[in-house]
Every structure is written in structure tokens, then in C-alpha cells.
């Protein structure tokens, strides 16, 4: 986490430089960013909404990563999860006690299916999950667009989205008149459960072994193909669940642009958080601040909100590259023994 702070500091410097380039005052920019994100109850709750939406895919990325799989398809899995929840939710009018669990499970299932495609390709044919998940992101976006505009078009829906979910299917809010829902609690609980799975369970042990030393894991009786499949399916389920909470808790309908790239930012969040579920909570909050403060920053300090996207993109590239280099070094060290 100390390293996470250094990374944060470095990114802040880069952000300041970017603001200068954009002709704005960096100090004013940061002030506006934090005011927009933390300046009041409404701002803080909105930041926590962003934190929640980031936390699900970030945990998904970390989970796959611990198993040695670079799942960069959380975005697509999140979209498919949201699609499943939105399509079913628009047609389901019953008590929330029944519909909400159904929609969340549907979202998780949709994400799991999407993640398993890459999992099967990897498990059965040794296909590279990076390329598979990357492609599946594009397919997910196009598929979702086609379905909601075409075959699954809801009467009365404007644009590429489903009809609004009945009120009974909306996630309960934690604070009145905000978009902050119980999804935050679900995400936090998921983080703690994952930490427990990694640290305490035989399943988590085998998963980490497969990720940290695949050859030793294989010889220790761990089925690498099965592990890859299960890890990708569960990773997809977490991202899909995140998509379902955006649909049921934030937008109350599925919209093809429900995610401003949560699944991609999640890669940076997971790596800043050292792939540790509990540290990832903090990292998600930090990136949540960026997400929710960006518009205020643009309005008050005349810093284009794209500066935030730029910094996030930089974080993804830098951290992913670092991870790859570290991985290569480790392999070389082993080869030299």
C-alpha cells in the first residue's frame, strides 16, 4: 500500500502537468476535484457510488490475476451482467424480495458465462485469455447494443436501453435521495469473503498456487485447466454482479453506455491494491474520487475531465507493464537456476 501511495503521488504530478498543458491551474484543479468528490454529503455519496461500481470489477480482475490469469475482460463481463439484469428486470414485476435477488444472480450468471468463454478457450485449447477477453469486450458491447435496439427492444425505450425497471426492483438506498445503495455493502462483503477465500480455503490455496507457480501446482495435483475455467467464470460473475448493481441501483435500466470503462480502470485499481481484496477497497475509493470529482473539476477549474481518463489510462499502462516485466524477470530467474 505504501507503494500504492507513491504511485498515487506520481500520478498526481502527472495530472498536474496535464492540467498545466490544458491551460488550467493545477491547484485549482485538485481543489475542484476533491470538492466535487468529497465536498458534501451528496458528493461523498456519489463518490461511494463510483467506488462501488469500481470495486466489483476490480475484485474480479484481482481474483483472476491471483490465479495467474490476466482478465482484461471485466468491462465486457460487466456489460453482459448488466444486460441480463436489465432485460429480465424490465419484464419482471414482482416483490423486490424476489426480483432483486433474481436480477443480481442473473447479472452474475451473465458475467460468468462471458468470463467462461475465455476460461474454456484457455482450459481446453491453451488460448491466451488476454486476447480472448479483450475481443469479448468488443463483442459484448456490440451484442448488447444489437439486442436492446433489435430483438429485445422495449416499447417506450428511447435509444439503446431497456425500459425502466419497476420500482420494486430498485436496490434499496442507504441514504435517502442519493444513488448510494446496498450494493456498496454487497461489494464490501465480497471483498472480505475473497480475502478469506484466498487466505483460508483449500480452493484459494490451489488458486494461488496455480497463479504463483503453475508447474509446481500441476505436480501437486492441481488441475490447471479446471482452475483456469473456474477462476474465469467466478471472475466474470463478480464483474457481472457489478453490472447488475449499476442497473438495479444506479440507472434502473440497462443502457449500453452504463460503464464509463469501470472494467478497464479496474485493472489499475486491482494492481494499485496489490491484488489484496481489502487494499482494493481503499484503491477503489481513491479512483472513485477521480471519477466523481471529474465533472466538478471541469466546471469549476476548466480542466477537461479527460485529464482523469488520461491519468487512469496511464496508471493502467504503467502498472500492467510493471507487472509484465516483473513476471518476465521471475521467469528468467527461475530459468537461470
Amino acid at each position, binding site marked *: 500500500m505504501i507503494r500504492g501511495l507513491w504511485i498515487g503521488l506520481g500520478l498526481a504530478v502527472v495530472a498536474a502537468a496535464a492540467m498545466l498543458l490544458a491551460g488550467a491551474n493545477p491547484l485549482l484543479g485538485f481543489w475542484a476535484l476533491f470538492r466535487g468528490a468529497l465536498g458534501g454529503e451528496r458528493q461523498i455519496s456519489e463518490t461511494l457510488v463510483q467506488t462501488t461500481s469500481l470495486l466489483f470489477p476490480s475484485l474480479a480482475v484481482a481474483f483472476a490475476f491471483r490465479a495467474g490469469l490476466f482478465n482484461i475482460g471485466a468491462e465486457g463481463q460487466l456489460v453482459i451482467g448488466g444486460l441480463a439484469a436489465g432485460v429480465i428486470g424490465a419484464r419482471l414485476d414482482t416483490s423486490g424480495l424476489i426480483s432483486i435477488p433474481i436480477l443480481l444472480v442473473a447479472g452474475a450468471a451473465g458475467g460468468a458465462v462471458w468470463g467462461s468463454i475465455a476460461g474454456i478457450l484457455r482450459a481446453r485449447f491453451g488460448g491466451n485469455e488476454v486476447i480472448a477477453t479483450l475481443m469479448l469486450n468488443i463483442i459484448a458491447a456490440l451484442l448488447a447494443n444489437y439486442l436492446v435496439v433489435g430483438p429485445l427492444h422495449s416499447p417506450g425505450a428511447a435509444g439503446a436501453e431497456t425500459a425502466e425497471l419497476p420500482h420494486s426492483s430498485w436496490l434499496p438506498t442507504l441514504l435517502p435521495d442519493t444513488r448510494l445503495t446496498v450494493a456498496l455493502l454487497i461489494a464490501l462483503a465480497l471483498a472480505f469473503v475473497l480475502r478469506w477465500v484466498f487466505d*483460508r*480455503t*483449500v*480452493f484459494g*490455496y*490451489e488458486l*494461488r*498456487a496455480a497463479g*504463483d*507457480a503453475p*508447474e*509446481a*501446482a*500441476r*505436480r*501437486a*495435483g*492441481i*488441475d490447471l485447466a479446471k482452475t483456469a475455467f473456474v477462476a474465469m467464470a467466478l471472475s466474470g460473475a463478480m464483474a457481472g454482479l457489478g453490472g447488475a448493481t449499476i442497473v438495479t441501483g444506479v440507472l434502473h435500466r440497462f443502457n449500453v453506455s452504463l460503464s464509463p470503462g469501470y472494467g478497464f480502470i479496474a485493472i489499475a485499481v486491482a494492481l494499485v491494491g496489490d491484488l489484496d481484496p481489502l487494499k482494493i477497497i481503499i484503491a477503489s475509493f481513491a479512483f472513485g474520487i477521480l471519477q466523481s470529482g471529474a465533472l466538478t473539476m471541469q466546471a469549476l477549474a476548466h480542466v477537461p475531465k479527460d485529464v482523469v481518463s488520461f491519468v487512469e489510462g496511464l496508471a493502467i499502462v504503467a502498472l500492467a507493464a510493471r507487472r509484465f516485466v516483473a513476471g518476465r524477470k*521471475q521467469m528468467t530467474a*527461475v530459468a537461470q*537456476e
Partner: protein
Amino acid sequence: MLGREPRRGAELDRAAARAEVEKLSREYGLAVDPDDVVETLPVGIAQRVELLRELAREPAVLILDEPTAVLAPAEIDALFATVRALALRGTAVLIITHKLQEVVAHTSRITVMRAGKVVARLETAQTNVDAIARAMVGGELPELAARMETTPHPALAVRGLGAGESSLAVRDASFEVRGGEIVGVAGVEGNGQSALADAIAGVISYRGTIALGGITLPAGEPARRIARGIRTIPQDRRREALVLPWSIVENAALGDQRSPSLRRGATVDRKAARELAKRIVEGFDVRTPSVDTSVSELSGGNQQKVVVGRALAHDPKFLLVYQPTRGIDVGAAALVQSRLIEARNAGVAVLLISFELDEVLALSDRVIVMYRGAIVGTFERGSIDRARIGSLMAGAGLQTGPVVESA
């Protein structure tokens, strides 16, 4: 040719490069095929390539770190002849090795290091193997454990085994390893030993059958083999046996993570894993600050003690051991060898694959010789003929068919 590529203009002159490699290979008696891709070669052959590359540069100072760990006896002789010739021509040669015979036979001066410090400086002419060994361990070398009388009983039976690819394959191998005996596989690296070991471990596909206690093992299921009491000490401990960033505790459970003794329902029994790690550390004299230390911080010898301790911790029926003392210090090597003998005394069936003939001969009740993937000779302990085994390892058995000598 890296670093001194022959050129034709801006182009690489491949023909000249190949010719030079062939010339060097002949000159130094180190056989390599210029067109092989190094990545695909067994470590012994890859090392020959490395050696040739350095020798070709006629260096002023040549540092060799464990140069003979994976070479055949004839190759070792050729290497030292080359190195001596270089030394006579004025090259300063520094050899880092744990093989004391080589030190005594081929050097002028000897420096002994222990735990990172120089503990002795000796003139080769005025010392001997025992004195060096004492300096290395800082006292007397532990004696190997005594071999007890055992009543061998059927354990592992291999019939018509074929596995692996082309020149590295094992072909039509049949043999038995009984409980209470160590069967040693003698051979130069790259003669099918890897494929043999991987087939028995269940990590590659194979033809023929492998049975334990009369029950044929299904292929490709390492987990089932572990459950039946098969344990392996793999070739590459850092990659195939240990999860380097993990602690000794976590590594101690690897392979037995599903065994009832190490789990409580779906969770890891951390207390049991810790107890096991402590038992291994104490029983195998693993030098470590604590059982929570990451194994990557241990020396090679101590890592290997963890691997061997883990393999023996759950009363295995059959133990596959691949180069158990490669690259580890004499003290650790003696301990590992003693523990293998003790396991044998206790009735474990042990298959020992080693490229160090001395090790094979010292530990085995029976020696089988592998050449080009086939078993070309079998010797019972009483009838071991070192010279005969050496020549079979070099290919002398091909014309005559398999040699079987019993006591």
C-alpha cells in the same frame, strides 16, 4: 555466436556461423547440433552451447560456475582438457563447484567458502578431498545412513513405457521398483530420464502401463497418484516443486492440500500445516530464521531439504527422486542421501534418477542404465561394474542388447 556474429555486409553470415560452431564443437569435444533451438534443449546440452560460446572468445579470465553439474563423464574430461589448455595459454580460470574430486584433480589453488565467508585457502598439491570437505562443513562430514536388511515387496511396476519426444523420449522401458529398495537410473542427461520421470509423475501422456501395488494408474492425474502414496522430488525444485514467494508453512502443504490431515472441511488447517513445517525444519535441519520465511530466501540446499522433507512426511509408498543433490552443498547432500536410505530401510520404494554416477552407485540396490531412451543394462548391487556401466552410458550396449547382471 552472440556478441561476435560473423557478417557479410550487414547480413548475418549463417553459413560461416554454422561452420564455426561445428569446428568449435569438434575441437573441444562438446557435441552440439548448430541448428537446434537452445530453448528446446535439455539443460546439459544447453550448457555445452554456453561453454562453447565462452571458449570461442578465448577469454583472459574464465569463470565457470558449476560447469560439470549436468555433463557426462567423457564430457567432463573433455571440458577440463580444454580448460587446462586455455590456462596454459595464459587464461586465468576460476571454477566454482561442489564436486571435490574435480577440484583436487584439475586446479592449482583452492579457496573454500562457507556461509559467504572464505574459511580456507589451500594449495591443491598439499591437500586432499577429506581436508576440503572438513573445511566446507566446518567439522567431520556426517556418515551416510546405514543400509538395513529389508524384505522387498512389490510396489511400482513399469511395463513397456514410451513417452516424450524424439531424441529425449523414453522407449519401451520395463522395470520394477520394490518397497525397501532404491533403484538407481544411471545415464547421461538427455537420454530419456525426464520423460520417464514425468510419465511416472503423471504430468505427460505415455504408452504402456505404470502400476502401483498391482493397480494400474490412470494417465495424466497427478492428484490420484499423490492420493495413492506416490511422491516426487522433481528435477527443478524452484519451478516444479516450490512456490518461491510462499513461506515454508504454505509450501509444506503443497501436494497434500486436500489430504484430511491438512484441511478442515473446505479450509486449510493452518495449525497442522505449521506443525508439519516445523517437523520438516527440525527433522531435516533446514537453516531458516522461521517457518514463515519465504522459501525464495533459503539456499538451494535448504530448499531441497524442504522438498525432500515434504515428500517423506506422509509415509509414501513410492518416491521418485530426480537429481536430489544437484547444486547443493555437501552437508545438505549427505543429509538428503541419508534420508533416502532411511526411507528405503522403512520400506519405501525409491527410484533415483541422477546424472552423478557416484551418487547412483552409492545409494542403489539395483542400477539400471539408460541410453537414448532405452534400458541398456541392469546391475544388482553386488555385481556393479563401474567401468561397464560407464561404457553402457556412452552407448556400448546398443550392439549387444540389454545387459543383465545379477549378484
